[in-house]
């Protein structure tokens, strides 16, 4: 069992949870993820390791409520225990001193961009971060991102914070200003990563994206996470999660992500019916 030792609510849909998991904390590198399972009946759900403290033996996960499993996860409280945490999975990010690195995070993508940006900064890069949210109330990790960025740009879809716009608007501006960009890291919803790649492809800027297909085992055994990269099938859990964005078949990826949409509706409905019960259940543990 793995214990929650700290919890922070970052926004109405995003929470940060710290778990005691010494082995994972010691081995983990930026870019890697874990798979959690809350209880016997739960799904196996992948989450990026946002941070880790090898001395304390803890890992930090940042999770956005999407369907049943992530909502249950975000309902956990300090002291609760979950059935399993396995990792660190996936390949670590390739970090070097590229020069000027632009880190783009959309919504939850910020949680993935943060460890990346931190590592890039430590390696001597000039880090420009662009964070995009739908509106102010969904914003999180602003201070953390600021602390590791040489410049930080924030945009909101509805203009409720800093400025109205999309992350791609800022990216275009940076390019138009003639800023030298050596590499772009983009993490967020598939349409966002795709839009970023469309722009950078035109300007020949190397772009790394972090993909989040549906997964089951996370060790290369099931093939659920397969994506087409440059015409070849790859497994995101072992060959990724990071890939050259210009090679990714985003259309296929978004179709595959919708595979269980109908099932998830059933899951959620059932959960809402039993909301009281499972909320109690998770308190008891």
């Amino acid at each position, binding site marked *: 069992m793995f214990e929650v030792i700290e919890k922070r609510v970052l926004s109405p849909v995003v929470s940060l949870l710290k778990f005691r998991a010494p*082995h*994972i904390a010691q*081995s983990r590198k930026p870019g890697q993820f874990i798979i959690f*399972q809350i209880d016997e*009946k*739960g*799904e*196996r759900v992948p989450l990026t390791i946002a941070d880790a403290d090898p001395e304390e033996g803890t890992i930090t996960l940042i999770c956005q409520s999407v369907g*049943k*499993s992530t909502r249950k996860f975000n309902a956990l409280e300090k002291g609760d225990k979950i*059935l*399993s*945490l*396995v*990792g*660190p*999975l996936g390949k670590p990010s390739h970090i070097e001193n590229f020069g000027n690195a632009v880190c783009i995070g959309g919504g939850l993508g910020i949680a993935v961009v943060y460890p990346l940006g931190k590592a890039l900064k430590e390696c001597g890069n000039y880090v420009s971060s662009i964070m995009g949210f739908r509106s102010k109330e969904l914003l999180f990790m602003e201070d953390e991102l600021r602390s590791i960025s040489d410049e930080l740009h924030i945009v909101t879809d509805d203009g409720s914070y800093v400025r109205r716009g999309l992350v791609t608007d800022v990216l275009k501006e940076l390019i138009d200003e003639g800023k030298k960009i050596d590499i772009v890291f983009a993490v967020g919803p598939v349409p966002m990563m795709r839009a970023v790649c469309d722009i950078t492809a035109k300007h020949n800027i190397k772009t790394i994206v972090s993909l989040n297909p549906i997964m*089951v*085992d996370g*060790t*290369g*055994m*099931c*093939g*659920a996470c*397969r*994506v*087409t990269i440059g015409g070849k*099938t790859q497994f995101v859990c*072992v060959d990724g999660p990071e890939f050259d964005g210009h090679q990714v078949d985003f259309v*296929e990826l978004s*179709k*595959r992500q*919708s*595979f*269980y949409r109908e*099932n*998830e509706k*059933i*899951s959620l409905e*059932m959960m809402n019916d039993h909301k009281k019960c499972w909320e109690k259940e998770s308190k008891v543990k």
Partner: protein
Amino acid sequence: MSKNNLTPKERMQIERQPMPEQDPNVRNKNFEQVNLGLAEEMAIMEAKRCLQCKKPMCVQGCPVGIDIPAFINLIAEGRYLEAARKIKEKNSLPAVCGRVCPQEEQCEGVCVLSKKSMPVAIGNLERFAADFEMAMGEIKIPPLPKPTGKKVAVIGSGPSGLTVAGELAKMGHQVTVFEALHKSGGVLIYGIPEFRLPKKILQVEIDYVSKLGVEIVNNFVIGKTKTLDELLSNGYDAAFIGSGAGLPYFMNIPGENLNGVYSANEYLTRNNLMKAYLFPEYDTPIFRGKNVAVIGGGNTAMDAVRTSKRLGAEHSYIIYRRSRAEMPARIEEIKHAEEEGVEFLLLNNPLRIIGDEKGWVKEIECIKMELGEPDESGRRRPVPIEGSEFTIKVDTVVVAIGNGANPLIPMTTKGIETNRYGNITIDPKTGATSKPGVFAGGDIVRGGATVILAMGDGKVAANSINEYLK
């Protein structure tokens, strides 16, 4: 108690006792066991068919060399617990093997009776004895020797890992099994369905290994959570790699990444390990297709296609490019699938999977095949018949054409040699890999093989590891 002093002639006159089964039209809608197990009188009757050969071929046919005539004789005499213990001298997972061994190719395949009539139902008797011991709650832990103080790491909790761990524990070594998944058993837990091998039965046999003093650590991926080299430099004196063949092959035909196309591993893992057939009570979903095509002819294909039937498919097809005689699946599984209403499209090869505009499987296009000259595997090579293409309407395709070796361990461990298929190469006499102190066996060495061969490898390696630790 019955007497077991029949003449050979009398023995030969007894007919092979059929395994009682659930009705095909009932069982293809549930996940309960298909084979119900022999009743006591039937087991005795079957046991009496054994001629008690002086030079028993069956023992040679069994990869772990169970003293088959001896345990069968004990059953014939009604001494079931002793029979179970006799088997366990050589095989610590008898309830599993009695259910899943391809007996027709092993012990029963060489039984002298098979020349005249039907071989003794060795597998069914093995299951009977093991189930009896379990039902009586009489599972005996053998006396364990003084601890040797040596520590061994085992990677993977499949049949090879469990066997090596159990054997080493019985030799007094301290063993830790590291398993990537949250449950132990390897293919036995994630691949083979409940209706062939109930998880409860498997759990009893895993608990037995734990009771021998073996520690099983789940959620621990060697090569990721810790590398094998780290284990070896942190107190482990030797290691065994039993990581299996868990990398699904695809056909590389158009449409394989459409929604509705599964690898057999994913399909079976969702259903067995994650209990998707109980969705939404369990959280993991599975797509319940109406028309399901499973590609392949092995045990994995049979398990997937029979699962699809149980998930409510109206049509479940096996698409296999050779003929029935070449199908690698156990004969019993093919027969069971047929009885359950699975439609066999033999001598057919898929060319492409066709999707609708939303990216979902709509049809599969196949081409008819005929058998030509034998290839290097000795089986006649299937050749496409030009112009014979046709399509079938399906909404789900399960690819069950085999698995390769997962490269994780060789990639993250110094000095482990592999062959061109990525399988770890060993000295077959000892199970030793190219790295001192590291042994391997099971599917990671052989490619997709069988439970009992994996167990046999575990035994060989256990003896060599014991020698190595001296």
